[in-house]
C-alpha cells in the first residue's frame, strides 16, 4: 500500500494526499505542465519534496537511493543514451544484483517478458538500431525486470511516466496487458497518461491534476465526467456509449 500525505514540490505541486492499495493501477492525468511528472519523480524519491510518502512501511524521503531502487522502479520519459550496446546488455543492467547469479530464473523471466512485449528476436540488436516503439518496449522490459517478483521479492511499486507515448495502438495493447499482469502480482502501478479512454478502461483509480493542484481523485467513472474534463482541459468532451462501453469524444 502506498500512503502519500501532503506531498508537495515548491509551487509546481501543491500538497496532496492519497492512498493507493496494493495491486491497484493509478492513472495520473491532467493538461501539460499540470505537475504529473513532478508528482511521479517526487513519489519515486528522485526529487526533493515536502510531506511524506510511504511504500508499505518504507519512508521514501528517509531512504537511500540504493534501498529505493529495490522497492520501486521509475520509467522516465524516453531518452536515448549516447552509447550503443545490445539489448541483452541493457536488460542485464536492470536485473537486481542479488538475482543475477540465478541464471535459470533470470532466463525464464526474460523469456516471459520478451514474449509479452514481442521482443524475442531483438535481444541481440544494438539499441541505436531500434525504432522508437521498439526502444520503448525494451525500456519497459528493463523496468519490469527491476521489480519482477521472481527476481526482486522486495518490489512494491512501479512508476511509469507516459509509457504509451512512443507506442502504436497495437503495442499499447501489449503495454496495458503487461501493466495488468504486474498489478495482479501485487505490485502497485502509478502512471501518467494522456489517452483518457485508456484511463477510463484500464485504471482502478484516477488522479486529476491542474496547475499542481489536485482536482479529483477516485474511480474512473466518478473522475472522468464530461463537465470536469471540459473544465480542466478547456475543450469539449462528450461521453458516448459504443458496444455498451463508455467512450470519450473530444472536440
Amino acid at each position, binding site marked *: 500500500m502506498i500512503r502519500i500525505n501532503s506531498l508537495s514540490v515548491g509551487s509546481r505541486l501543491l500538497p496532496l494526499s492519497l492512498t493507493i492499495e496494493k495491486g491497484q493501477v493509478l492513472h495520473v492525468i491532467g493538461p501539460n505542465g499540470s505537475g504529473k511528472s513532478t508528482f511521479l519523480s517526487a513519489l519515486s524519491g528522485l526529487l526533493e519534496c515536502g510531506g511524506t510518502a510511504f511504500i508499505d512501511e518504507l519512508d521514501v524521503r528517509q531512504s537511500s537511493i540504493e534501498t529505493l531502487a529495490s522497492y520501486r522502479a521509475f520509467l522516465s520519459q524516453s531518452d*536515448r543514451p549516447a552509447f550503443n550496446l545490445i539489448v541483452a546488455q541493457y536488460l*542485464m543492467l536492470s536485473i537486481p544484483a542479488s538475482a543475477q547469479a540465478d541464471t535459470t530464473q533470470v532466463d525464464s523471466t526474460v523469456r516471459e517478458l520478451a514474449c509479452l512485449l514481442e521482443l524475442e528476436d531483438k535481444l541481440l540488436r544494438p539499441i*541505436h538500431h531500434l525504432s522508437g516503439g521498439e526502444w520503448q518496449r525494451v525500456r519497459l522490459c528493463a523496468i519490469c525486470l527491476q521489480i519482477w517478483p521472481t527476481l526482486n521479492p522486495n518490489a512494491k511499486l512501479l512508476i511509469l511516466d507516459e509509457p504509451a507515448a512512443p507506442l502504436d495502438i497495437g503495442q499499447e495493447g501489449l503495454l496495458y496487458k503487461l501493466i495488468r499482469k504486474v498489478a495482479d502480482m501485487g505490485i502497485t502501478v502509478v502512471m501518467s497518461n494522456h489517452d483518457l479512454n485508456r484511463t477510463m478502461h484500464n485504471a482502478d483509480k484516477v488522479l486529476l491534476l491542474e496547475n499542481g493542484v489536485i482536482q479529483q481523485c477516485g474511480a474512473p467513472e466518478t473522475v472522468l465526467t464530461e463537465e470536469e474534463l471540459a473544465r480542466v482541459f478547456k475543450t469539449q468532451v462528450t461521453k458516448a456509449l459504443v458496444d455498451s462501453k463508455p467512450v470519450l469524444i473530444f472536440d
Partner: protein
Amino acid sequence: MEFSQLIQRKQRRWNLFAIVATLSLVFLSIIYLMVGEVLISPFSEVTPLMEKLVLQLRFPRLLTAIAIGAALAVSGAVLQVLLGNVLAEPGVLGISGGASVMMVLVMFFLPMFATPIGFMVSAVAGALLFTLLLVFFARSARLTTTRLLLVGVALGILSGAVVTWAFYFSDELSLRQLMYWLMGSVGGASWHHHILTLFLIPVLVWLCFKGQVLDKLMMGELHAKQLGIDVEAVRWKLILAVSVLVGGAVALGGIIGFVGLVVPHLLRLALGSENRYLLPLSALSGATLLVFADIIARTSLESAELPLGVVTTTIGAPVFIWMLVKNHDSH
C-alpha cells in the same frame, strides 16, 4: 538462444581479446627492450653496458610508456561516460592543457618545486582545476555536450596561449624543458619518476572496478539514479580520479594526444560498451599502443628520436577525423 548464454558469449569475446592484448603487450615490451642504438638479444652474452642500457634506460622508459598509455586510455573512457559524449578526451577537452599550464607556471615562478613530485602535484591541480571549470560551465549554463566540447576546446586554446607566452619569455634551458612537455616524450624517464606511477596504480585499479557503476551511468543519469546509483557523489569521485590520472600522465610524459579518444572508441566499435570490461581492456590496449608508438619514436630516425606525442597524434588525428565524418558516435 537463452539470455544468459548471450551474455556469456559476449563475455567470452572480451576475455579472448584480453588474452590477445596481454600477449601483444608482452611481445611488444620484449621487442621494446631489445631494439635501439644497440640491439640486445636475450640469447647473447650480457655485457655490463647492455645490462645498464636495459635496467637504467629502457626498462624505466618502457614502464613510463605503459603507465601513461593505461592512464590516458582509462581516463578517456571514463570521461566519455561522465560527459555522455563519445568524443570526449582529456586532450580535446583541454584538461591536459590545464595540467601543462600549471607545470609551466611552477617551472617559471616556483622553480624550487620543479621536482617530479612538485610537477605531479601541480599537474594534478591544473587538470582538476580545468575539469572543475568544465563541469561548472556544464552545470551552471546547462550546456549540451556539444557545447561542452567546444568550451573544452576553448580552454585548450587558452592553455596553449599561456604556454606560448611562457615560451616567448623563457631562456635557453627552460625552453628546452618546455619543448619536452609540449611535444610529449618519455625520453627522460628514469626510476625516480616512477614515484608518480606508484600514485597512479591504485587510482587506475579503483577505476577499473567502477565498471558496473559506469555501465548504469552510461544509460543516462536519471535512469542510473532510479537504479540506485548516487550520481552526484560518484561523479565527483570519478572526476577526481580522472584528474589524478591525467595530471600524472602529463607530469610523466607531457601532452600525449588522442590515446584517450582512439583506444576506448575502437574497443567500443569492435567489442561493445560494457565498462566492466572496457576499462581494464582500455588500460591494456592503451599501454600496448603507447609502447608501439614509442618503438616507432625511438627507432624511425637514424640518429635522433621523435617526440612520442607527435607519433600518437599522427596516428590519432586521422582516426578522429574518420570518426567525426563517419559519425560513428551515436544515433
